[in-house]
């Protein structure tokens, strides 16, 4: 089912001199199975927005509906909601605490009150999904490498089998190889399970290859909302708010200006290759 945000506002430190609006009048409809990139500059309200989506932050105005129920109703079971809307925080490896990797992944499903067997099954499955080699399952999570730790932390949320998976900057601090691995994993998980995925990032490059809808945030407001192609046709507006379109988009635009008849709406390397080859053939 879908997640609906209706006129959501959020103000930090209300009623003190330090108060400021983190979110202003956010209206979004997130449908089942969508793969969304949530993009914005540092401080644009991305992280605040995703924390309101699973009830960790209560909006200071507006309502959020999951499956048609208001998640901030006093009798709504927000703990159960967190099993359905899974949120992976920035640098999630900092939340690991158990003696072994496997035990740590079990923490989420255990909190959902499942049977021992189900907990183990889900945890095993989640660790498989993030491609962690079996030899690490019973090691201390603190002995793993940065990329491995991050995958374990993501598995910790996946093991709760959420319907919506939100990842806040899952590639922060990783090298290009680690970044591609994580993004590839997420994209594969989305294909296999048809889970709704929201990928928070400040890099267009990261998300352009994978998502089918981009929401651009600026100063707590939704600045743009559309498919990657729609969003990337406005590079000037994006640059004004400190974001950039993918490198390939710049390249094809440059080529067009120099007289090559290419399609300037391409966003991925593959598409760029095709349109450039086609244009060269047509000459």
């Amino acid at each position, binding site marked *: 089912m879908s997640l609906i945000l209706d006129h959501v506002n959020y103000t930090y430190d209300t009623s003190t*001199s330090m108060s400021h609006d983190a979110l202003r009048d956010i209206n979004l409809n997130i449908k089942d199975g969508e793969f969304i990139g949530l993009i914005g500059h540092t401080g644009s309200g991305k992280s605040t927005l995703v*924390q309101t989506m*699973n009830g*960790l932050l209560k909006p200071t105005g507006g309502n959020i509906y999951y499956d048609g129920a208001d998640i901030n109703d006093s009798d709504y079971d927000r*703990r159960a909601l*967190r*099993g359905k809307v*899974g*949120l*992976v*925080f920035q640098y*999630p490896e*900092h*939340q*690991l*605490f158990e003696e072994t990797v496997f035990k740590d992944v079990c*923490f*989420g499903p255990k*909190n*959902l009150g499942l049977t021992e067997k189900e907990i183990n099954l889900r945890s095993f499955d989640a660790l498989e999904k993030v491609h962690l080699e079996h030899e690490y399952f019973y090691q201390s999570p*603190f002995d793993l490498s940065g990329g491995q730790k991050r995958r374990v932390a993501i598995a*910790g*949320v996946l093991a*709760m089998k959420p319907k919506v998976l939100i990842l806040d900057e899952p590639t922060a601090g990783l090298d290009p190889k680690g970044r591609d691995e994580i993004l590839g994993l997420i994209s594969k998980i989305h294909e296999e399970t048809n889970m709704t995925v929201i990928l928070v990032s400040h890099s267009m490059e990261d998300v352009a290859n994978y998502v089918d809808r981009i929401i651009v945030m600026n100063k707590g407001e939704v600045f743009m909302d559309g498919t990657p192609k729609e969003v990337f046709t406005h590079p000037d507006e994006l640059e004004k708010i400190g974001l950039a379109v993918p490198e390939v988009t710049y390249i094809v635009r440059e080529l067009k200006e120099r007289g090559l008849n290419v399609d300037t709406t391409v966003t991925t390397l593959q598409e760029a290759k095709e349109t450039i080859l086609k244009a060269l053939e047509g000459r």
Partner: protein
Amino acid sequence: MIRDITLGQYYPAKSVIHRMDPRVKIIGTFIYIVSLFIVNNLIGYLLAALFLVFAISLSKVPVKFMLKGMKSIAVLLLFATVFNIFLTPGEIIWSWWKLSISKEGLLTASQMAVRLAFLVIGSSIMTLTTTPNNLTDAIESVLKPLKVIKVPVHEIAMMMSIALRFIPILLEETDKIMKAQLARGADFESGNIFKRAKNMVPILVPLFISAFRRANDLSMAMEARCYRGGDGRTKMKPLKYQKADALAYLVLVAYLAGCILLRIFGQYVI
């Protein structure tokens, strides 16, 4: 949720007290605390209250912030007051069953409650109007004479400033870890005290690990910049007294003198 703790939190504003040399504020707070134990009659307390109101109005910090500090000592205050009222022997003015209230008890209890409250509010004026960095600079400067007897004053001040610097960071970290575990369905609110304590493990382990990691990083960074203690170290912004500070000292001395005089000659005034 966890950010509501105000202990030692700076409230930015532009006021005479904010601009004052931090040494004046430390010594002033010390004088005020001493004065609270000097005064022993009504007029003395009125003078102390007046001085407090004067300082608060000069500081331009909302009174709400001052009173927040009171919350933390509310329980202590309540206990101390209740025990003093009922357990002080003396001229009994009211009794029921095994409980009795004496005149002396009422007097000590109210004196102590007022002293404690003034003490907390008075010192919170200092912490609310002084940045932690300024405060430790001032402590280092005020304690400097102790160097003669080999007290590592600089190191103590450095440790204090590091500790103060890390309070907000660790609070934020706790907030983040708590949210991350809540997102994994953790429950910190239900169950008995043992269960709750056990439920804190998923917060405490990551918190300790991150604190050690930060300490390690910081010591590396300090060493990389050739930090080697206080010997021969100069300051970028040395503390300098201004004219206003001299005036403040004058006011403080006058206030202290007033308190002492009121204690000695108080009985003739009333």
